[in-house]
């Protein structure tokens, strides 16, 4: 009896050792090229900036972190809020939230439409939503640019119809960034929404109508609560990449409408302030982690409630 248990234990131990061996390459690669470097960023955020980029070896300071929110006057050393940075944080937050909202407004009916198709054609509709998602982000951004720029489709069409006299300047505005991000991140909203809508038990909807609910009431009181996990998942999935967006604001926003991602880029390029760039990166990551934790908590609560 004891021997058999020993034997089984040994087999189990061997199995687990094998499993560690099998996962070693993955763990190693992700450690070297994804997780490990983040610790270096953390260390760099506490170092002194070098004169031509990079940092000075083994000199530490809080200047990088100080620079995230404040600026010091070069002449009289007075400390003030960094208006530029605050404006960029504000723009990033507002644009990311608005993008989440617009993808939701557009994505909710779309996901609902797909979820209420006959089972066979759902796959095709879903596939149509995902195709743009798998094509290059830059190409999609460029495609948006083709439509909204001054000589683009939108303006050409309105001009030739005589609706406007001069092209509407959309490129290099916050609106352009928002349109672009909505376009680019829409599938990230539709897919999780669809996943929870697919599971709706329409007998509940029917019960709502039997109890004389209007369509709006059914939508608000029955459907929305049922797909809440999908709404939260979709919002998080859109909000996170939108907040850290780099390509879309760079292409559609031009040099003036920076977002957080571009501000970070700037510090490693022309700004030559790597510690500040590192501190900004850690800040962005911290916000994302908070959002993910929030998601994990609500998701586990929802999971408990709905099985």
């Amino acid at each position, binding site marked *: 009896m004891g021997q058999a248990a020993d034997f089984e234990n040994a087999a189990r131990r061997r199995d687990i050792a094998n499993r560690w061996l099998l996962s070693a390459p993955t763990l190693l690669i992700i450690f070297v090229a994804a997780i490990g470097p*983040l610790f270096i960023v953390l260390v760099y955020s506490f170092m002194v900036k070098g004169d031509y980029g990079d940092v000075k070896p083994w000199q530490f300071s809080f200047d990088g972190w100080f620079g995230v929110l404040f600026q010091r006057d070069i002449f009289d050393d007075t400390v003030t809020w960094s208006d530029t940075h605050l404006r960029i944080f504000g723009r990033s937050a507002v644009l990311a939230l608005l993008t989440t909202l617009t993808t939701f407004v557009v994505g909710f009916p779309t996901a609902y439409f797909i979820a209420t198709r006959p089972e066979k054609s759902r796959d095709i509709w879903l596939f149509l939503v995902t195709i743009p998602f798998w094509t290059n982000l830059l190409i999609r951004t460029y495609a948006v640019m083709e439509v909204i720029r001054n000589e683009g489709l939108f303006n050409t069409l309105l001009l030739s119809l005589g609706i406007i006299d001069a092209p509407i300047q959309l490129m290099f505005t916050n609106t352009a960034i928002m349109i672009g991000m909505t376009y680019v991140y829409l599938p990230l909203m539709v897919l999780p929404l669809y996943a929870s809508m697919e599971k709706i038990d329409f007998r509940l909807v029917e019960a709502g*109508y039997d109890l004389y609910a209007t369509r709006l009431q059914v939508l608000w009181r029955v459907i929305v609560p049922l797909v809440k996990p999908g709404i939260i998942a979709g919002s998080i999935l859109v909000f996170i990449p939108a907040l850290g967006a780099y390509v879309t604001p760079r292409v559609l926003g031009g040099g003036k409408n920076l977002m957080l991602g571009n501000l970070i880029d700037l510090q490693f390029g022309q700004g030559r302030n790597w510690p500040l760039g590192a501190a900004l990166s850690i800040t962005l*990551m911290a916000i994302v982690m908070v959002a993910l934790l929030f998601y994990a908590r609500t998701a586990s609560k929802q999971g408990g409630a709905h099985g």
Partner: protein
Amino acid sequence: MARGFAIKKLPGFTFIAMLTFFLLYLPIATLVVFAFNGSDSFVNWGGPSLRWFEQAMANEDVREASLRSLWIAAWAAVLASICATMAALATTRTAPYRGLTFKYAFINQPLMVPEIVTAVALLILFSRIKVWSGYSGLGYLILAHTAFCIPFAYLPIRARLESMDTTLERAAADLYATPWQAFKRVTFPLLWPGILAGFMLAFVISLDDVVITEFVKSGGQDTLPTYMLGQLRRSVSPEMNAISTVFLALSVLIVTVFFLVNRKRV
């Protein structure tokens, strides 16, 4: 309830959905159509022509960048799907063991961190290593791409493993197959569609990357997306539409195959 009352219907939803699909494909369609435009300008339609494709083909930079993109994507996808297959075998079909959650967290980590953060982190690390080692080849890009491709390759492989019937493998073991023989003759052939799907996802994800590549690449290592990003800053010519169209077609092709492979499974 009145007969014919459609309980699933919500007013305006179908209209918005149709509009969404239209708007989703409008920019892409515009891009593709103007890639075949014979005239120099975006505004006028000069009849169908392949001149922009010819011009792109003749452009040395574009040729080199495209080949480099495909080369990196091929390496990253091969490495990522091998690693992900091993990792999936290590993390599925088992009672929970110490470190399993840790492994999940590790594998999914590249999905959690904003790309720009990983990009600057790799810039810092690799710029140091480049100075120390004197090596500045494509290895850095391949390593970086492999890392963020692994979670994507892992997903379909894991899904496939979890839905697989274990009786066949047990039968193999009963017939005195060694673990390796059982893997080679039973598990692997059954797992193959998952691995293929994982490979294709990883390939597309690698081709798609702009941000990390932009920060990790050394001089003269432009991939097609970073080349395009550089061009977009200066001027846009319909040549960009031609390049985009080719890459779009490639992605759509891969995803369609992926879709069909996955569909057959069900």
